[in-house]
């Protein structure tokens, strides 16, 4: 599985070069980040960006890099996501997948571990705000069994068909 994820990610990097149509998406993002068991208030807010390449109707390579404002950490992830809802709906989708996570603060965020996740994306106003997507995601690290939940907004940058 890890080899497949890595292969998909490497293919995603090269995808725009030989894709028949644009598949890449780049987005700026802001999150509230909840650690496991604490859903009352976000213990930290994050700013960063996400990249994704949809390679087939259900399979995408995804990644992200975020900075935690409160606890001053940097975390990154990359992996594969499989869309489990209507693949032709550009305004709503739910994806399941697995990503490799690394963090500058291993005691605060998943570090050097694979982590399954469930992600939800919803474009609340496709006509008036076509580049704005609201997201929520939950997952947990396989190595440290550290869970998390994040919710936030994304602004899709006008490149690679990311509308």
């Amino acid at each position: 599985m890890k080899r497949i994820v890595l292969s998909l990610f490497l293919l995603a990097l090269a995808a725009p070069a030989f894709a028949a149509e644009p598949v890449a998406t780049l987005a700026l993002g802001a999150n509230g980040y909840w650690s496991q068991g604490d859903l009352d208030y976000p213990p930290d807010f994050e700013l960063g960006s996400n990249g994704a390449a949809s390679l087939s109707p259900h399979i995408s390579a995804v990644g992200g890099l975020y900075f935690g404002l409160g606890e001053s950490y940097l975390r990154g992830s990359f992996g594969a996501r499989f869309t489990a809802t209507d693949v032709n709906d550009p305004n709503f989708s739910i994806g399941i997948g697995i990503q490799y996570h690394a963090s500058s603060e291993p005691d605060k965020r998943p570090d050097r571990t694979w982590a399954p996740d469930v992600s939800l994306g919803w474009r609340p106003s496709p006509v008036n705000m076509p580049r704005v997507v609201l997201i929520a995601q939950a997952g947990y690290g396989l190595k440290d069994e550290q869970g998390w939940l994040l919710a936030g907004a994304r602004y899709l940058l006008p490149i690679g068909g990311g509308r």
Partner: protein
Amino acid sequence: MTLLDIIRKLAGPAADLTAFLSAAGAKYPDLEPRASDLAAKLSTAVSADSLVTLASELPKEIADILQGKLDGRRHPSDVA
């Protein structure tokens, strides 16, 4: 680790996300109908039937990708 193992381990995160949507709906009543709708869609998406259907689609798509046949879509959840 197989795809089946990953699917098994997704139960916890799916439950966490459902709980989050319920909590958001309870805290902000104006959002409750939307939160309930999203929770219902989430429940359907991670149901066994849905995941079996998804898993059956993947081998062909992986083969297509490895052959360079790309057929991308726009998924809002890809940027989560």
